[in-house]
């Protein structure tokens, strides 16, 4: 029942929690219980269904399927395409958002005229609902006839890119990156502002120019924040759904089908509950791998 609070560097005073005899269990229990149910019941059901023959279109087909659903899924080329797409999607968005996020954080950390308002404009995309974002990009920007991009390239005599037909995955990547760059910027900017000025000044006296400053002082300081951004983005990017739903419905063919969309289409469009559940289990396992790292980092921040 002790909490350690560092008071001076290198010294710790151990302070006990308050003497008050307030029972904490009834205060915390409801939240824990409710989240437990939310996790356990659906997880158990997903697991159960994944071992069943269960197709809503074909109620005749039922019974224990063993690993049949998994075998079917794992030998289905569609799954591997979806996994590849997922990895490409997540990897590309991560790369774009983190690089842009770091550079923009450095930029917006410098004072310039109207910085506050410019900052508001830059972070706006994160607050726009994904369905609206997707529609704006699909129909106002990337549309081959009416879109702004088309108008620009046509005016420059470069022809027209039919984004969702020619480069569908790239189009999705662009839309998602646009939405998440502000997230990375916001977090990295906050982390930057905890870099104390004296360190920067000491570096300047030591002769560091802007590039050296960036690579030797700023980047290392941001290291942990970048890791956090990467992990949190990965968790959410694994489940990209709305943008695909609204623009390409996974197509053309399977070009923009990621794991989440595949499971959705199997389960709710093809009504294959068994197969969809097996896919769900795979998605959960994947997410857990990333989650373990994120949880450890955050648990460490709790000890501070």
């Amino acid at each position, binding site marked *: 029942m002790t909490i350690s609070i560092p008071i001076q560097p290198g010294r710790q005073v151990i302070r006990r929690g308050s003497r008050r005899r307030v029972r*904490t269990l009834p205060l915390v229990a409801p*939240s824990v219980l409710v989240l437990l149910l939310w996790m356990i019941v659906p997880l158990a059901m997903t697991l159960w269904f994944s071992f069943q023959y269960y197709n809503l279109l074909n109620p005749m087909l039922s019974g224990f399927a063993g690993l049949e659903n998994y075998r079917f899924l794992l030998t289905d080329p569609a799954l591997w395409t979806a996994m590849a797409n997922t990895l490409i999607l997540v990897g590309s968005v991560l790369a774009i958002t983190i690089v842009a996020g770091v550079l923009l954080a450095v930029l917006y950390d410098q004072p310039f005229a109207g910085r506050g308002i*410019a900052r508001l404009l830059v972070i706006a995309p994160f607050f726009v609902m994904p369905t609206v974002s997707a*529609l704006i990009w699909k129909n106002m920007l990337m549309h081959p006839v009416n879109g702004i991009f088309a108008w620009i390239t046509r005016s420059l005599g470069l022809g027209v890119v039919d984004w969702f037909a020619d480069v569908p995955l790239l189009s999705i990547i662009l839309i998602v990156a646009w939405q998440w760059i502000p997230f990375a910027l916001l977090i990295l900017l906050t982390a930057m502002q905890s870099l104390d000025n004296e360190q920067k000044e000491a570096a300047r006296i030591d002769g560091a120019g802007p590039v050296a400053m960036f690579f030797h002082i700023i980047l290392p300081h941001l290291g942990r924040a970048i890791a956090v951004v990467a992990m949190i983005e990965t968790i959410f990017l694994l489940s990209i*759904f709305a943008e695909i739903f609204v623009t390409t419905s996974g197509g053309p063919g399977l070009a923009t089908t990621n794991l989440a969309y595949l499971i959705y289409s199997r389960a709710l469009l093809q009504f294959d509950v068994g197969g969809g559940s097996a896919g769900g289990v795979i998605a959960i396992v994947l997410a857990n791998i990333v989650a373990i790292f994120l949880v450890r980092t955050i648990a460490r921040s709790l000890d501070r």
Partner: protein
Amino acid sequence: MRHAKSDRIALSVLGWTVALVMFFPIFWMVLTGFKTEAEAVATPPSLIFTPTLDNYADVQNRADYLKFAFNSVFVSLGSTLLALAFAIPASYAMAFFPTWRTKNTLVWMLSTKMLPPVGVLVPIYLLFRDTGLLDTRIGLTLVYGLINLPIVVWMLYTFFKEVPRDILEAARVDGARPADEIRHLLVPLSLPGIASTALLAIILSWNEAFWSLNLTASKAAPLTAFIASFSSPQGLFWAKLSAASTLAVAPILIFGWMSQRQLVRGLTFGAVK
């Protein structure tokens, strides 16, 4: 850091260029809402035009829009209040009376947020179908309350922990009982924190686009689903859709702008503050 004047101008130009480029799609959407349908699809796209409020009037008149907007408001506010109701006592207990279990509880709650929704899509969908919760506001409110609960607990926990212990001890010496402590000190001092937590929960619920697309149809669909239904429109719809989208997006944009600093804490589960 002192910059030469030319440096500062270069920075301003760069900073503003990036800002305008990033904001452009939103800007264009807002602009289109004030155009006529013909103008909206005209090429070359026009920046100067006579603005009209017809689209907004039209959107307001269509009962559909108001219904969906109401659904969004109901579900966002409802789920936020639900989450707060569960989270405030829990965070209070964990922040001020920590036990050896506290850290594990917090970390476990966090891990529930990392569950990919698609992993439990099937059972939730079937559960909702069989219990009549499909396409109901209550159903969606419950789901949002649950998925936001971990973030709300975390954010409140970090805000409560920032109330300095000796202020509470001074109050104890002054004769305050736990109820007095909460009423006179805790709530006033952490009100800004509670407010930004609520704001974040509202934003996350309003923008949520997985469960809203899969668990609702015509009756309980919030604005996310409403907009999504226009994914293959005819070109004649653009101006009205832009107006509707602007209305759907504006409040959250403002909320987000207001609470951007506090959001970082909630979005990173306290790992970056």
